[in-house]
């Protein structure tokens, strides 16, 4: 297993080169020259030339590409064009608000969905199953913006239970800011999650070994919690863990509606102001996170299923 992990980490090197290449091509070749974009319509040729010099855009293309690769390994992404701030410092500041929102919301929604899907699987085909499935589909059919506006208006503005928007980083206080967007997150993910987990669990319920477990005289709840759930873990792990890299990117929509100064907001601002270094940094970081978490998925498989051997 250690050799497997080492080999997978080594595979990351060519992958990072590839990812850097795609990002480089997208920003430096396809997107065109950023200097006139930054300086506006009235810039002189000299100004543009100076800026290009300053941003390192006059360097040979290969050297520019190597800069992207280097930043992926050193995490030194330079400074933002828009704010002149050190990018890694910006990300560090944005990470806390984002993660305090996304991680608890994600954890709660995942656990809640698994529990609900077990209940649904237990009562498969009966009234409770049908009702919950109906609610899931109905809930999924409504736009997320509608939830945000309604919840914000009703629970924060009308009832005053939560802060309408903003953020404070101190421990107990931030809860009042992230609670409402967190609840919205949970409501939004419940529909698709419960439906997916239900399918996975029902796939297992009709397997031969479940029949064997029942033939032993085990009750339906033991069968479900012990025999079925453990086998359903593989698709559940795949589904859950691969979402984690996206948590790091922050919740774009929720953060902007609730004015939370998180990573989602940073990315959005960078996109609006053509702040290429920041977008590049976010793209590189999320690629690395994605690779790391898919490796984690594979390692978790071995814990869930003894048949999986990583070599």
């Amino acid at each position, binding site marked *: 297993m250690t*050799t497997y992990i080492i080999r997978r980490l080594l595979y990351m090197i060519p992958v990072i080169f590839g990812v850097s290449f795609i990002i480089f091509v997208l920003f430096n070749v396809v997107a065109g020259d950023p200097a006139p974009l930054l300086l506006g319509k009235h810039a002189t040729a000299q100004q543009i030339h100076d800026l290009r010099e300053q941003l390192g855009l006059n360097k040979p293309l290969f050297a520019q590409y190597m800069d992207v690769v280097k930043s992926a390994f050193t995490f030194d992404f330079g400074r933002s064009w828009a704010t002149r701030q050190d990018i890694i410092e910006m990300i560090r500041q944005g990470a806390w608000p984002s993660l305090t929102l996304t991680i608890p919301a994600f954890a709660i929604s995942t656990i809640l969905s698994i529990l609900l899907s077990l209940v649904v699987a237990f009562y498969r085909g009966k009234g409770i199953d049908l009702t919950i499935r109906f609610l899931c589909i109905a809930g999924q059919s409504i736009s997320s913006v509608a939830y945000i506006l309604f919840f914000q208006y009703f629970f924060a503005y009308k009832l005053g239970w939560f802060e309408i928007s903003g953020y404070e980083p101190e421990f107990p206080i931030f809860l009042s800011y992230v609670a409402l967007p967190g609840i919205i997150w949970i409501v939004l993910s419940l529909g698709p999650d419960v439906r997916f987990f239900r399918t996975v669990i029902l796939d297992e319920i009709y397997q031969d070994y479940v*029949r*064997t477990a029942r*033939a032993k*005289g085990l009750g339906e709840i033991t069968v479900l919690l012990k025999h079925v759930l*453990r086998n359903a873990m593989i698709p559940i792990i795949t589904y859950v863990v691969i979402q984690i890299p996206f948590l790091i990117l922050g919740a774009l929509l929720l953060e902007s509606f609730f004015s939370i100064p998180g990573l989602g907001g940073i990315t959005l601002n960078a996109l609006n102001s053509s702040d290429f270094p920041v977008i590049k940094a976010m793209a590189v970081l999320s690629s690395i996170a994605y690779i790391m978490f898919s490796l984690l998925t594979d390692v978790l498989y071995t814990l*869930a299923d*003894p048949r999986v051997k990583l*070599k």
Partner: protein
Amino acid sequence: MRLLQQPPAHISGEILFDGVDLLKLPDDQMRKIRGDKIAMIFQEPMTSLNPVFKTGAQVAETLMLHRGMDKKTAWAKAIDLFNEVGIPNPTQKVHAYPHEMSGGQKQRVMIAMAIACDPKLLICDEPTTALDVTIQKQVLELLRGLQEKHKMSMLFITHDLGVIADVADDVVVMYRSKMVEKDKTRAIFESSKHPYTKGLIACRPDMGANPKRLLTVSDFMDEAGNGLKVTRDRVQVFEKDYEAKNGNDILLEVKDIHTHFPIKGGLFGRKVGEVKAVDGVSFQLKRGKTLGLVGESGCGKTTLGRTILRLVEPTSGSIFYDGKDVTKMGQEEMRLLRRKMQIIFQDPYSSLNPRMTVGEILTEPLVVHGLGGGKNERLDAAKALMEKVGMKANQLNRYPHEFSGGQRQRICIARALMLRPEFVICDESVSALDVSIQAQVLNLLLDLQQEFKLTYIFISHDLGVVNFISDEVGVMNKGVLVEMDRADRIYKQPREEYTKTLLGAIPKGLPKNIEAFIS
């Protein structure tokens, strides 16, 4: 066992067990009986054990549930049980996961689990169908021994009459959801009354006789279930003549074929070893004849078949088809050759694309090879072949799931024949079918061989089937052709030890001369 979900199942009547009607018991009472008083062994040892728990834990679970044992005692008892069912190194094997065991061992674990609480009744649902003959023999012996020792009653469900003759005291024959006959085992075999029973007994390819064709249930009974008189002029079951078949030139010659698969390991996936699936096989096959390949699972017979078609590349050796070396052919030459060589696979359920209609499936080979003219001509060819394999031409626009297993295998056969091949490999092509259907499909294969002058390689683990269909039989073990000879000689005078072991493992049943069925 009341394992069926109700609804959708609707169950009426009475099931009296020790005087108690099981159908009237509340669920919690029924659970106390399941696994304790009545235990069950299932058909598929591969999937019937939970893959993520240790086998010992799965046996101990039953004991903890019904006997209230603590974990330690239950595990100790599990080791005893593993020992009793003949699993070697029981102290270590209780820690093995199902995938670390062979099929036979898994079935032994299932048996250990079933007898853990000394049940009064053991229900065995096709417990040996998925196992090789030699393993089947061991498992049947084990079950009989345990039955005697634990004084259990056994309800043994199987389609294999050979096994029935070996294990049963009384037999109940079921046909279309109804019991059609019930008697002592001897009486069933010697003087069965129902035509269906007669058909079942007669359609089993038997080692003793070498008939030209197999009798089928439909020889004994018409669609409505009325008995028919089986007369000599209606059926052709005479001894077959091995020399009479057409052609004497050599169609296929395999010379010292090796097919090895690498095992990869280490940091950079270097080759650390290899599986020698086929390890030096040579033989010749004459045009129009059938070569049967038998052997236990993992002996390399399927890999050999696929290597001949170059679905798998051989590691070394040469394959001469009609005098040309197949292993040296380029892509285009190979494409042309594929028209002549076809294969029929084992599982008619998974080898047909579920999203294509039968018509599309049958015409696709013609489309791929650019043959058969336009769309309508192709469909006409498909219709003609559908009728040849005993199906209806108007079934072409249906999908595979609308057909039964036997019908699907006929479709697979038709698909293989669409290109008018001269050489067909049948890889376990009747193994997934019931005996009565199996007999029909085997007869069909023989008819088609005559009509289209086909040469077959017939791969199977069932020695009776191979004996019936083949002119020559090759016995494979561990990638090597152990013995090859004319079919009847292999069965009557086997030379090699391995062949004798294989033949000795076949349930003898109560052999009955085919002639006895004909009036």
